[in-house]
């Protein structure tokens, strides 16, 4: 297993290019304006999909130019059990979720614990557009242009201590706003986790938007995790807490079905769900199924994280 320590040397490829750095000032000014206008909704200028537009410093396509999913489908077909177990009901039921003010607490085995206001957090890092494939454990997939920042940036800022081996994420617990939490379908609040080396992988981002605009509530506003080589249920939504821990967190889905949902949940066409095959997937918008790729097509970036591990055992 690779080391869980945050490397203290930075690869040349990770150094922010000058244009991006320069853009950051522009971005800071823009996001300050966006934050100001978000506070006064009548002044905010909505984008083509009705959300506040987000400025991004760069755009990287990690989906080999595959067509992105229609916005209507990406925003209308959502697994978000806090609102409903019916994917087509989530958009309506989540309309009333208040995402401002919103505090994200970073705590645990770190030198710089802090409760961040969401707008403060967003302004700390330049936003990027990342186009990723998304593969749901249920057997369907999408291609989504996310807007967000690398989780690694926040982790470095928080300065993990040597004991920190895992990162645990928690969703808001508020049955008054989240009707799905009034029934114990899952153990609430929703908890997810990553190994520290997975969390600092450059593919891992915290997303605040998609399709160039602020995240719609049903897609996990105001802050969600995106880990494109894992099944969608790892992409925890509406995050309120990020905690650095020594022990592997027990996630909500591990509690719900320990034989069916593991901690890693890496997309793997060779390891079936006990009740269905994972060899193929239906891309939303397509008719016939296509083959599922190992690590959802991101083996080059992440396979080394699992070198020597039995992926049937650590599913």
């Amino acid at each position, binding site marked *: 297993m690779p080391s869980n320590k945050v490397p203290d040397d930075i690869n040349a490829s990770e150094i922010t290019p000058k244009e991006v750095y320069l853009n950051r000032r522009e971005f800071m000014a823009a996001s300050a304006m966006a934050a100001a206008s978000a506070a006064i909704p009548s002044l905010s200028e909505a984008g083509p999909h009705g959300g506040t537009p987000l400025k991004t410093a760069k755009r990287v396509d990690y989906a080999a130019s595959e067509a992105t999913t*229609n916005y*209507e*489908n990406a925003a*209308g*077909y959502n697994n978000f*059990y806090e609102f409903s*177990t019916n*994917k*087509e009901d989530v958009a309506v039921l989540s309309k009333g979720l208040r995402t401002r003010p919103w505090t994200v607490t970073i705590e645990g085995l770190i030198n710089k614990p802090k409760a961040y206001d969401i707008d403060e957090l967003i302004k700390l890092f330049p936003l990027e557009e990342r186009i990723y494939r998304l593969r749901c*454990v*249920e057997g*369907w997939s999408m291609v989504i242009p996310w807007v967000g920042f690398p989780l690694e940036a926040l982790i470095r800022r928080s300065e993990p201590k040597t004991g920190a081996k895992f990162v645990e994420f928690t969703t808001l617990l508020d049955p008054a706003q989240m009707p799905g939490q009034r029934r114990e*379908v*899952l153990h609430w609040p929703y908890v997810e986790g990553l190994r520290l080396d997975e969390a600092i992988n450059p593919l891992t981002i915290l997303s605040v938007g998609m399709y160039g605009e602020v995240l719609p509530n049903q897609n996990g506003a105001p802050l969600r995790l995106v880990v494109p080589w894992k099944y969608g249920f790892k992409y925890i939504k509406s995050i309120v807490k990020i905690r650095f821990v020594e022990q592997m967190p027990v996630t909500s889905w591990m509690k*719900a*079905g320990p034989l069916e949902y593991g901690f890693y949940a890496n997309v793997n066409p060779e390891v*079936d769900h*006990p*009740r*269905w*095959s994972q060899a193929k997937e*239906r891309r*939303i918008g397509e*008719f*016939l*199924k296509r083959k599922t790729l190992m690590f959802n097509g991101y083996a080059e970036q992440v396979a080394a994280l699992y070198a020597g591990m039995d992926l049937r055992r650590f599913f």
Partner: protein
Amino acid sequence: MFKSSKTVNSAAALLFIVPLAYLIWGAMNSQLGANPVEKVIHVTGNWALNFVLIAITTRTLCSLPHMRRIGWLHQVAGWAAFFYATLHFLAYAVLEHALSIGEMLDDALRHRRIFAGALAYIGLAAAAVMALPVVSHAMGYARFRALHKVVYPAALCGVVHYVWLVKKDLRAPLIYAAAFAALAAYRAVMKFSRRPV
């Protein structure tokens, strides 16, 4: 209480086509949501199960006094169940596996959910063949009655197939399970008490 005329009966019987009409209308007007293939598979499966349970219910009801006139209903429901189960199977075979028999066999042998669904469909298909007039006459009434009861295990397999589909929220499949259990229990009690069922 049930005044049946042939016209009324035929009109009522045609209602079984409504779910299919909905799917065709939805497909033509892009009203089947983000995942229309999944919707087709789920709607046809749901209605196969609905009609199986309607068939068993009406069959049970028509054994009650003064209810013989609804006997025709369980036949319509039975054929409708087989019709939707066939659409469900075809949708699975074509849209999930592009008609590859090897792939389907592999799926059925490796996943208990698909296996249960396959058993359910084989049971329904056998019941449908027996119900063809030529076959049922050749079998004789007693044998037909005994063997046609294959719809009960088939219905049970269908319910289990549905229970094994859902990830966590079992409410809907458990409603079917409860309905089936109530019907099966009622018929078992009736049989035990030696009243004609």
